[in-house]
């Protein structure tokens, strides 16, 4: 790296697939082995190039013998893979002996990039930029934490829960999904999720870390019938925790995060929200992933970049459109 410029502890890495397991329809858990990955924290993300590492190497047309006709295989014709990278929040990290790191992300097939990712098998290699963005800040003072994940927003919460429990926090998780089938549940012996928004040891991913979960499903097929923030509101009302004791961390659909943010701000509860935006680079240069935040002076707001200033913002910073 150049000595003339400052390092932010990010980089471009080669990741080797350790496992790419389907966890429920269309959803995969991808574990990558990366050498010398910089320190990271929950809420940060990686940008994966959804194209074969071989495919992005310059075709060696210069090898063709003189006098032979050129191959009509331009790179964009030889590649049916998307141009831009896809961002994925880190769902976990494990540092291994010898300087290698296991990174975990989850992905859902929604288009060409994630369809390409879904077919990866162990041993495949991918290009990984990261760690990107700013993560969640774990409160020094507040002993309790509620983590709320809506849909794919559950992923960063898995990494966060590890950090929170390691910091000695008392943690309760909220997981919102459209339907019960979209959630990996703990195996036999676990209590069924309570329809009354009470946490149980039901969601496998959180139970593994000793954290009980309130489950909310849109269709009522599991746990609380309704939206995640409604389950959270009910839990808050029943439990009446002191706002000064609790930090809330949320990631999911924006209406959910706005509702959670409003609930917390009204009760003096610290609240950190992880936003999602369409982005081209993830490194703070393309300027596409803007969100509106409060600012002093005229006009009273400013755009911030979700990839660089975020993706985690404090609820009081955000101005929702």
């Amino acid at each position, binding site marked *: *790296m*150049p000595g*003339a*410029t*400052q*390092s*932010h*502890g*990010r*980089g*471009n890495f080669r990741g080797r697939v350790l496992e790419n397991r389907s966890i429920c329809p269309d959803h995969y858990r991808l574990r990558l082995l990366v050498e010398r990955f910089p320190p990271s924290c929950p809420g940060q993300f990686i940008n994966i*190039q959804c194209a074969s590492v071989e495919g*992005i190497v*310059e*075709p060696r*047309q*210069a090898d063709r013998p003189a006098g032979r006709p050129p191959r009509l295989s331009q*790179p*964009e014709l030889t590649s049916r893979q*998307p*141009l*831009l*990278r896809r961002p994925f929040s880190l769902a976990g990290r494990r540092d291994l002996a010898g300087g290698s790191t296991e990174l975990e992300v989850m992905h859902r097939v929604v288009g060409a990039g994630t369809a390409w990712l879904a077919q990866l098998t162990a041993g495949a290699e991918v*290009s990984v*930029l990261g760690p990107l963005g700013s993560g969640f800040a774990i409160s020094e003072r507040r002993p309790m934490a509620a983590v709320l994940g809506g849909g794919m927003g559950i992923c960063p919460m898995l990494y966060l829960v590890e950090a929170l429990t390691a910091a000695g926090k008392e943690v309760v998780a909220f997981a919102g999904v459209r339907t019960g089938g979209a959630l990996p549940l703990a195996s036999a012996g676990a209590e069924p999720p309570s329809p009354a928004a009470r946490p149980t040891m039901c969601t496998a991913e959180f139970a593994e870390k000793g954290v009980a979960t309130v489950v909310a499903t849109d269709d009522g097929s599991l746990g609380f019938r309704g939206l995640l923030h409604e389950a959270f509101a009910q839990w808050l009302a029943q439990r009446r925790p002191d706002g000064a004791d609790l930090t809330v961390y949320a990631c999911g659909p924006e209406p959910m995060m706005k509702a959670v943010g409003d609930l917390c701000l009204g009760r003096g509860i610290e609240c950190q929200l992880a936003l999602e*935006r*369409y*982005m*081209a*680079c993830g*490194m*703070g*240069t*393309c*300027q*596409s*992933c*803007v*969100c509106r935040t409060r600012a002093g002076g005229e006009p009273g707001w*400013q*755009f911030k970049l979700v990839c660089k200033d975020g993706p985690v913002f404090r609820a009081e910073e955000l101005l929702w459109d």
Partner: protein
Amino acid sequence: MSETVDLSVDVAGVSLANPLMTASGTCGYADEYADFVDLTQLGAFVTKSVTLKPRAGNEYPRVVETRAGMVNSIGLANVGLEAFLAEKVPLLERLGVPVFVSIAGSGIADYVAVAGRLEGVDVVRGVEANISCPNVKEGGIQFGTDVRQVSRITQALKRVCRKNILIVKLSPNVTDVAAIARAAVDAGAEALSLVNTFTAMVVDTDTRAPVLASGRGGLSGPAIRPIAVYMVHRVYTEVARGAGVPIIGMGGIQFARDAIEFLLAGATALAVGTALFVDPGCLLEIRDGLAEYLRRGGHRSLREIIGSLQAAP
């Protein structure tokens, strides 16, 4: 590694160690990519466009990916001239490569004011007048699509650019790019950058509305490369070669072979844009690929192949 190949080029008196530079708007102002690529190895660094006053830019969504490309409508979001001078110039000074500052404005006076201030900044070696941004209501492309306006703004800038070379960045959204290029060169442009993005639109078929908040944007990426190569070649043969004005070629360069196409078509230097979003390190891979291509072809210097396009078989 056999003998070394001379990759250096000269852009209107500014000597570059190699022809590779960043394309404005895709690389920030200075050190944003420092973690991903050794920027000191570039031929030159071109900043994001700077305007007299800061600009917040357009509403979200600002980009959408297309097949082999992307459409953006950022709206010249930038920190403004004062913050650029105070905060970014010190970072640029540490890069150790020639810096060209892209400038934009809503009127000729804005461009002139920014260019005038940049005369006092040593590390800056040139200004690139962005008269081709398709994403702002005023200024930008309205200058770049009218020969009289191109002439007027170039003349005005030429009067203030003394230390700095004057590069004019052309829009491809014109009927006759050579006529625009001629107007710029006749009015004093010392180098031409082409092409900027192609005005484009992507429609969401569910909402039946444009995907981008501003309705339309500029298409970039590998999809535009063949049109950009054609435009570079046309401007080279019809204007630039005769006038001795170098072309900075850009539009969809991602691999060394893409870059070679532009050189053969007549570009002296090359800028990489959208591909940086995927991998900033591609700049140096392209540079090394150029050297390998030249070695295999038995060339001593990159300058030997500039504009050496053969007639179609």
